């Protein structure tokens, strides 16, 4: 409930009643006794996936934004006549996990006026209705067949700037939505197949990067058009009832497969407390969310509580639900269709009102995807992983905390062509994944909730923007220690090139508190960090023919930037950031010393960390000193046994 009069209308349609839909609108349905053969089911459910794939490829081809074309920060969905998600692409998961809520809101509120007709598309970036945050703009289209709504398709992508007080629409100095890009509830962007110029202008006018947003909108429309055409072709070939039966069966299959998996796991409760640090610029606090996942028979019950909304780090119900389900998909549903319309049926969410991860209007949610929602992914990951660890049959599918925060770097200025630019660097897509029960985490694997994401090429950034990379590289000691260590992460370091400098806005968490947690004794990964080396000697180094391989080789005034900052980068200021790796699994003392030594030789682990945390002494030539290792590990065990019980010191 919001305290703002009239705001509650703009609330996600969690409890949808089809009788609220205008009676003039009709929906395609199939007879209860319709029979679908299993071969057709398998062929057509994969065909729907292919349509999704083509929808996503179309979007990528049309958008000119590197956020989309290079880093794949988007997703596409196909849903049934009520918007229940049947299929989505392998990109950012929580883009896809909200569209059912928006579609139901459209059905309820737009069917009487202005109506929902064939050839319409609605645009929405209202987080309270369902968009994860304002940048993640959703374009949704009904698919009609014989005058009835047969299906829905949607395309979502991160638009680089949709207005508001700050670069990239991340209002880090403010407390609420009034300072952010205005949330747009579903409105018709396309009517009878025609892009509505007035609505497009409404969107472009408020952006610092209108040409990019214009292309993004066209890419979303194009993706939807391709999906609509292909669904019509599928209906022509197989018949509407058959295609719809496949949609139904796909969701039923996903639901039953998940329930079956849950029945194989022991009943219990798994809990985690997680944090975001710093709610806005100049803030110095951490904010907590507690999650308990209770597994009873074939159901997962999520109980969510935590601190009240603060600053700009919040998310709404839609973003929270997307964050909760994101780890469920790869860890529990890896071998079944990710048909969320079925998967959600096995999940129940109980949440406190108006907390950081279920914030009421007008809390600041403009960064939700990389704040409250991401944070929700982290706490859910811990609970799901620990639940899987309770089953010897299922533990191989757990993954410890992965790439625990998004290190946002929004910049603007004049580029090397003397033209205005604004962008967000997508290098942190190369985060490290958590360790597994049987193997190390994957180094610089990506983002756990975005399996299809990719880090922008260094060369693409240098071509598009006035920057020269000193390096982007994997970082020693960034992986969480453990019997199986986490995946290492990377850092980037660059200097402005052929420009007077640029304006920066940074925003992240996981800087004061590591948020890629390990499990079963695995250590967390590194923390994130922003630095600027002011008035550096980089030009002198270049003149000497030196390209630094590490920022420690650059001299200048070190400016350690906070988790939420705005600053200018001068032409000789060297910028550095590091994002998070993956958490470890198991006691580091149980890691094979030879594997530790191999990590030292490959510079994933320093010699000092090998000795301190793993208890492995590695000689200068990179081999294990077994005698010294045995002694060091015994010393660590002895130290552990001298510790007291919790509360002893009191």
């Amino acid at each position, binding site marked *: 409930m919001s305290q703002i009069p009239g705001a509650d209308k703009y609330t996600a349609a969690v409890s949808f009643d089809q009788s609220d839909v205008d009676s003039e609108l009709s929906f395609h349905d199939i007879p209860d006794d319709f029979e679908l053969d299993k071969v057709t089911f398998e062929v057509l459910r994969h065909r729907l996936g292919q349509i999704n794939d083509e929808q996503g490829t179309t979007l990528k081809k049309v958008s000119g934004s590197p956020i989309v074309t290079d880093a794949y920060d988007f997703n596409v969905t196909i849903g049934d006549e009520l918007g229940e998600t049947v299929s989505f692409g392998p990109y950012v998961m929580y883009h896809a996990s909200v569209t059912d809520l928006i579609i139901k809101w459209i059905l309820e509120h737009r069917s009487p006026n202005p109506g929902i007709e064939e050839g319409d598309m609605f645009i929405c970036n209202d987080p309270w209705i369902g968009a994860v945050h304002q940048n993640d703009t959703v374009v949704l289209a009904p698919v009609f067949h014989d005058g009835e709504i047969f299906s829905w398709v949607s395309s979502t992508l991160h638009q680089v700037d949709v207005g508001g007080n700050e670069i990239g629409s991340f209002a880090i100095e403010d407390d609420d939505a009034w300072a952010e890009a205005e949330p747009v509830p579903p409105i018709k962007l396309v009517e009878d197949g025609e892009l509505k110029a007035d609505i497009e202008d409404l969107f472009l006018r408020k952006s610092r990067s209108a040409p990019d947003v214009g292309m993004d909108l066209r890419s979303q429309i194009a993706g939807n058009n391709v999906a609509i055409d292909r669904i019509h072709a599928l209906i022509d070939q197989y018949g509407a009832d058959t295609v719809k039966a496949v949609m139904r069966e796909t969701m039923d299959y996903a639901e039953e497969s998940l329930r079956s998996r849950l029945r194989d796991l022991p009943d219990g409760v798994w809990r985690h407390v997680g944090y975001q640090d710093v709610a806005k610029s100049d803030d110095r606090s951490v904010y907590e969310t507690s999650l308990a996942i209770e597994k009873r028979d074939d159901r997962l019950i999520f109980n969510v509580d935590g601190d009240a909304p603060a600053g700009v780090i919040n998310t709404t119900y839609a973003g929270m639900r997307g964050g909760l389900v994101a780890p469920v998909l790869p860890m529990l549903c890896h071998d079944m269709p990710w048909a969320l319309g079925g998967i959600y049926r096995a999940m129940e969410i109980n949440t406190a009102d108006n907390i950081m991860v279920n914030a009421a209007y007008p809390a600041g949610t403009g960064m939700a995807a990389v704040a409250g929602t991401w944070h929700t992914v982290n706490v859910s990951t811990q609970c799901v992983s*620990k639940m899987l660890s309770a089953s010897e049959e299922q533990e191989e599918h757990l993954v410890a905390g992965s790439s625990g925060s998004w290190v946002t770097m929004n910049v603007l200025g004049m580029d090397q062509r003397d033209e205005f630019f604004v962008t967000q660097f997508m290098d942190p897509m190369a985060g490290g994944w958590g360790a597994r029960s049987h193997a190390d985490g994957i180094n610089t694997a990506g983002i756990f909730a975005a399996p299809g994401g990719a880090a922008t090429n260094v060369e693409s950034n240098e071509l598009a923007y006035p920057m020269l990379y000193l390096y982007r590289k994997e970082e020693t000691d960034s992986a969480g220690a453990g019997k199986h260590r986490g995946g290492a992460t990377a850092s980037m370091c660059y200097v402005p090139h052929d420009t007077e400098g640029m304006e920066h806005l940074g925003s992240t968490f996981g800087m004061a508190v590591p948020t890629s947690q390990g499990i079963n004794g695995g250590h967390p990964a590194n923390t994130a960090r922003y630095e600027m080396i002011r008035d550096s000697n980089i030009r002198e180094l270049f003149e000497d023919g030196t390209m630094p391989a590490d920022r420690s080789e650059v001299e200048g005034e070190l400016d350690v930037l906070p988790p939420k900052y705005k600053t200018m980068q001068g032409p000789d200021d060297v910028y550095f950031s590091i994002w998070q790796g993956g958490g470890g699994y198991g006691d580091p003392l149980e890691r094979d010393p030879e594997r530790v030594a191999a990590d030292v030789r490959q510079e994933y682990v320093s010699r000092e960390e090998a000795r301190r945390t793993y208890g492995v002494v590695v000689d200068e030539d990179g081999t294990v000193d077994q005698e010294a290792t045995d002694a060091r590990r015994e010393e660590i065990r002895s130290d552990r046994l001298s510790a007291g*019980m*919790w509360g002893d010191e009191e």
Partner: protein
Amino acid sequence: MDLHLAIEDGRVVCRSCGEDICAAEENYKLHSLCERKPLTEAGALVNDPAVYVDDEMEFRQFYCPGCATLLENEVIKSDHEPVHDKQVFSE
């Protein structure tokens, strides 16, 4: 229950040494050895939180009292009780 702990006859026991830790419904962390350390002890690239926030945070490590196996870690506010993170219902 997890990699290190099992539930046997309604009790949480260490898989490595058989140490009887507590009843299945209890929080095993309250019956384990515990070290409370600065966050920076969690890893070489873990920042000092005092640079960024005023809250007191800590890195906790819980060990089996019998064999010193590292059962679990916590990254948590210093005034927060240990989280009962794993509770498997025993029939």
